[in-house]
Every structure is written in structure tokens, then in C-alpha cells.
């Protein structure tokens, strides 16, 4: 057992770096971050003000890394962080935050609040305070192979079904191909039509690709918890598989946080650069489009909007490819009022939708998404993240809205121009 209050404090000390020190030095408690956070705007409860979520960390920074704070501590003007303080923080850091980072976009002094919330979570996890559901998901991922706990066999069955449906052979553990495809658990269990869809698209584009039997899960509960060692184990599984199969490109599926984990955090948690490149599936498809290898036919004429997933768009930098692709297959694409980097979060990401106690809150804050969608009068919301898709579907059902939710890859597959090849 290595988690303890002391370990938690220790981790918080360890992770405080120059950006965090600059952020805390600069915060003027202006409260603007609250205006950007659905958990505040939809509940009106000021306790959800984003910068408050890292208050224990701020105190540790002040007391440990500033002369002023040290003096204050000596004079008894500031109290050390207690175990209770950390416990109380779990609700704010885990159970009412999707780490969507919208707050970061409005902070006048430019504080990246989510950067800090991630580190705050790391400290709480080291203190043994990570939500049980995330811990269980981490155990399932590493012991059984996937976040939802299904074994390889389940995926294999899905692959066989897709092969049967499309008549295309799908590789597992095929070395020296162009791409290694990862999937998120949600895709395998709920949106598995994506396998067949991609098989067709890649076949038409002449892309060679494979699954890996060792690493097929892209989801990373270790990242949500900030358990960097566990996050690294999950990443390493993928890195090893890609290296063994000599694959130069890894595809992160339609899953925002998976993209964040494998694309941006991965090399940093394992401590070395990758010998391969990582792309979001939508980036891959957009590249194929650019090269003329992705051809579609027909346009959706209904009013369609797009929901930018926070981790892929705002935090991950994938903003334009999805629009290029949408314009290929729709004639009535309508942007949400706030889009791309300023899109409002679906409310279910960042591990929130695995935390049972957070369910009422997730439902409540969906209200913002509902308003956003309602004012557009659309029939379909397209997105590129399984978690967003899941949350959108549940929210839409809950609110009796007559809206269809779709993955972008699936939408493209529906319009794929199939040239007859033998």
C-alpha cells in the first residue's frame, strides 16, 4: 500500500512546477473562470468555481515554495493542508469537473486551470482518494485489457461480425502496416459499427492497418486519476505493441481523453518520445481527404451541427479536420454559437460519467448543451468522441429531444464512394 495522506502531499509538492507557480502568483480571484464552467453556470453554486478546485495545492505552493508563504506559516498565519482538506477536495477535483478546460480559455491572466486540476487529481490519487469507480476501471484496463473489462475475445467477435457484414478482412497483429488502430471500450460495446465503417473507408483509401491483441484499448483511466505510473503502464502497452509490429502511426479513436492520453501526455508519462506518430482518427481521415484518397458521395441536407470534444479540440488542437470532413458530406452544417476552443462541455467527460454519485450533476449540467442544441433547430448532432456521444445520447433521451447523435466516422462511412474493386 503506497497511498497515504503523506504521499498525497508529497506528490503535490513534486508536481508543482514553474507554470503552476506562475498561475497561483497571478490569480486575482476575479471569478471569471466560474462564468466559463458549466458546473457553476448550470447550478449557480459558487463552490464549483474552477480555481477553487485546486485550493489545497495553492496552499502547498504558497507554504512550501514562496518566501512570503514560509514566513506566513512561521507566523501561524496559514495552516498546513490536512487530510480532511484533501478529502473535501475530491468532490471538486473529480466529481464536478470534466477537465474540459473552458475556464482556461477565459482566465484574464492566462492560467491553465485544468493543467492544475490534473495535478491536483494526481495528489488526491496518491492520497488514496481517487473515486472507486475510476480505480476499478484502471484495474479492469490493466488486468482484463479494456476499460469496461471485456476481454480480447469480445473484440474479436465484433471484428468477425464486421468482416461478415463488409466482406473485408480485418487484421489483428499484422506487422509493418501503415496504422495501428485503437478503440475505446464505449465504441466496442455501444458503437461497434465503427469497425466496419473504418474497414470500408481504409479499404477504399488503400490504407493498411491492424488491431493489436495486446493493445486495443485506447481509454486510459490512469490519466483521469492522475495516476501517472498507471497511465504510463497503459501507454507502454500500446508503445510496445506498436514497436513489436513496426508500426509508424497509431490511431486514437473517436475518444477525446484517449487522444489526450496517447497523443499528448503519453510520451511525458513514460519519459521518452515515441518512435511513431499518433493521430486522431479524424486527422487521419482528413489527411486521406487531402490526398484525395477519401471519396464520398451525396450530401446530408438536414440541419446538422457538430459538438467539439474538449480533449480533442480545445485541449488537443484538432479543430479544423472535422469541419473539412463535415463539409464533404453535409450541405447544411451549422456551427454551435460557442464552438471549437470555446465549445461547452457535454458534462460527462473527465471520468465524470463513471462516477455514480455524479450522475444527477451530469444530468443537470447537460442543460447547457440542450440550450445550445435547441437554439440551432437541428436534427443531428455529430461528434468525434465516444464519451461525448454517450453523454449526448443520454441527455437527449432524458430531455425528450428529437435529435440524432452520430460519430463523424460513421457519417463519413455512410457517404463513402465505393469503387468496385475485386
Amino acid at each position: 500500500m503506497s497511498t497515504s495522506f503523506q504521499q498525497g502531499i508529497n506528490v503535490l509538492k513534486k508536481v508543482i512546477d514553474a507554470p503552476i507557480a506562475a498561475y497561483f502568483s497571478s490569480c486575482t480571484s476575479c471569478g471569471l473562470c466560474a462564468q466559463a464552467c458549466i458546473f457553476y453556470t448550470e447550478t449557480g453554486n459558487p463552490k464549483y468555481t474552477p480555481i477553487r478546485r485546486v485550493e489545497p495545492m495553492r496552499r502547498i505552493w504558497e507554504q512550501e515554495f514562496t518566501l512570503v508563504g514560509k514566513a506566513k506559516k512561521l507566523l501561524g498565519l496559514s495552516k498546513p493542508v490536512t487530510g480532511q482538506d484533501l478529502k473535501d477536495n475530491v468532490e471538486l477535483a473529480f466529481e464536478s469537473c470534466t477537465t474540459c478546460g473552458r475556464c482556461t480559455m477565459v482566465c484574464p491572466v492566462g492560467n491553465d486551470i485544468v493543467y492544475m486540476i490534473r495535478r491536483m487529481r494526481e495528489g488526491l490519487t496518491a492520497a488514496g482518494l481517487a473515486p472507486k469507480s475510476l480505480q476499478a476501471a484502471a484495474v479492469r484496463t490493466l488486468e482484463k485489457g479494456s476499460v469496461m473489462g471485456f476481454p480480447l475475445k469480445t473484440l474479436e467477435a465484433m471484428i468477425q461480425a464486421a468482416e461478415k457484414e463488409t466482406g473485408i478482412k480485418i487484421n489483428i497483429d499484422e506487422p509493418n502496416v501503415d496504422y495501428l488502430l485503437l478503440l475505446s471500450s464505449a465504441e466496442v460495446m455501444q458503437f461497434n459499427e465503427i469497425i466496419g465503417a473504418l474497414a470500408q473507408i481504409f479499404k477504399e483509401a488503400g490504407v493498411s492497418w491492424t488491431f493489436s491483441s495486446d493493445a486495443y484499448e485506447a481509454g486510459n483511466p490512469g490519466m483521469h486519476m492522475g495516476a501517472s505510473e498507471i497511465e504510463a503502464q497503459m501507454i507502454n502497452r500500446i508503445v510496445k505493441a506498436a514497436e513489436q509490429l513496426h508500426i509508424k502511426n497509431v490511431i486514437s479513436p473517436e475518444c477525446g481523453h484517449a487522444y489526450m492520453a496517447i497523443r499528448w501526455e503519453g510520451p511525458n508519462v513514460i519519459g521518452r518520445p515515441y518512435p511513431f506518430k499518433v493521430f486522431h482518427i479524424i486527422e487521419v481521415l482528413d489527411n486521406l481527404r487531402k490526398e484525395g484518397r477519401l471519396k464520398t458521395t451525396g450530401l446530408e441536407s438536414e440541419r446538422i451541427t457538430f459538438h467539439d470534444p474538449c480533449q480533442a479540440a480545445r485541449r488537443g488542437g484538432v479543430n479544423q479536420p472535422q469541419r473539412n470532413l463535415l463539409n464533404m458530406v453535409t450541405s447544411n452544417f451549422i456551427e454551435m454559437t460557442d464552438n471549437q476552443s470555446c465549445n461547452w462541455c457535454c458534462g460527462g467527460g473527465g471520468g465524470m460519467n463513471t462516477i455514480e454519485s455524479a450522475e444527477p450533476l451530469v444530468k443537470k449540467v447537460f442543460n447547457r448543451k440542450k440550450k445550445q442544441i435547441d437554439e440551432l433547430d437541428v436534427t443531428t448532432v455529430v461528434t468525434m468522441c465516444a464519451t461525448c456521444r454517450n453523454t449526448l445520447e443520454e441527455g437527449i433521451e432524458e430531455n425528450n429531444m428529437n435529435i440524432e447523435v452520430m460519430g463523424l466516422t460513421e457519417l463519413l462511412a455512410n457517404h463513402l464512394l465505393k469503387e468496385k474493386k475485386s
Partner: protein
Amino acid sequence: MNEIELLNWARGPGLAYATAIMFFGLSIRVIEILSLGRPEELAEVRDSGVRDGWLMILKRSLPEVRHWKYITASYIFHIGLLVVIFFFIPHTHLFRDVFGIFWGGWPNYIIDFFTVLSIAGMLYTLVARFYDPARRILSKMSDYLAWLVTFLPLVTGYMAFHRLGLDYTTMLAVHILSVELLMIAIPISKLTHVVTFTMARWYTGSNQGRRGVRS
């Protein structure tokens, strides 16, 4: 001590001590931040982030229009304060004396306008601190003190200029002393942001730039 002695102390040793404390403190603060280091980015970046770091420093100064209700007062206050500090002619002479650079000042009626604007903006931010739930929950005693030490120079300066309240000599001394209080408060309070906001923006902006995020 008569008012002239008070003024002479404020203009002389007082200003020197306050300047020393402010620069001493800010120097410590900046080094404390820098020395904590920033982990090397090992992921393959889309861009060096340098451009976006600089852009962020500049662009975050533009108003966030969608939140105009929340930012207008403080926005006006900041602009007013900068104008008053750096373009009131007597102030420009102080800067010329200290830093050896002179950029000329603006006519008094303009400064007067901005002073009133700043004071009004500051009063609104104080009221907002009470009434806006998010600001209220974030506000500690130090936030109110920081407000006060920023507010005092504006008001005393305005009063001195308009010969209100105490006699001019005393008011001028009080004004200078209130500025010295502000200077001392800068490195030991959230007012440090007058310098570190550039660092915070740089870190966030360059990080976003590396990831190809538009800030």
C-alpha cells in the same frame, strides 16, 4: 514632523525604500517561479509554441466580449490605472528620473477623466465582490486589502490634484505614501500578477501552441 518633512520623507527615503522592497520582492518572486522549472515536452509538437506564447500575452489583454458584464468594470479600471500611472505628466517625470526614459504625458483633463473612470470601475469591482457569488466565495481578507491599497493612490491622487481634503502638501505626501504602500504590497500579495501575468500567459499560450490549440 510637519507636512513638508512628511512629503520630503515620502519623496526621499520613503520612495527609495518602497522601490527597493518592490524590486527586491519581485525579483525573488520571479526567480522562485522560474527555478521550479517546466517539464520538457516529449510529445511531438505541432509548433514550437513561441509564437502562441507571445500571442497569448497580447491577446488575453483583449476584452472577452462574451463576458462583458463581468469584465467591463475591471477592464476599464485597468486601462484607467495604466493611463493615470504612465501618462500623468508629473508621473512621467518620476519615470524619467528613475529609468531615464521619457515618453511624454497627456493633458490633465484626460488623466482626470481616466481617474474618475478607474475609481468608478474599482468601486464596481468591490460591489461585485460582494454580489457575484463566485467572486464572493473566492474573496479573502487579502483580496479586500489588495483592493484597498490599489484604490488609495487613485483617490488620494485625485484629491491632491483637485485640492480636496487636506492641504495640498499633506495630500501629496499621503498620495505618495499610499503609492509606496502599494509598491510594498505588490510582491507579497496577489498584486504580483502585475508581473507574473506575462509568465502565466506565456506558459499557457506556448503549451497551447505546441498542441495546435487556438487561444
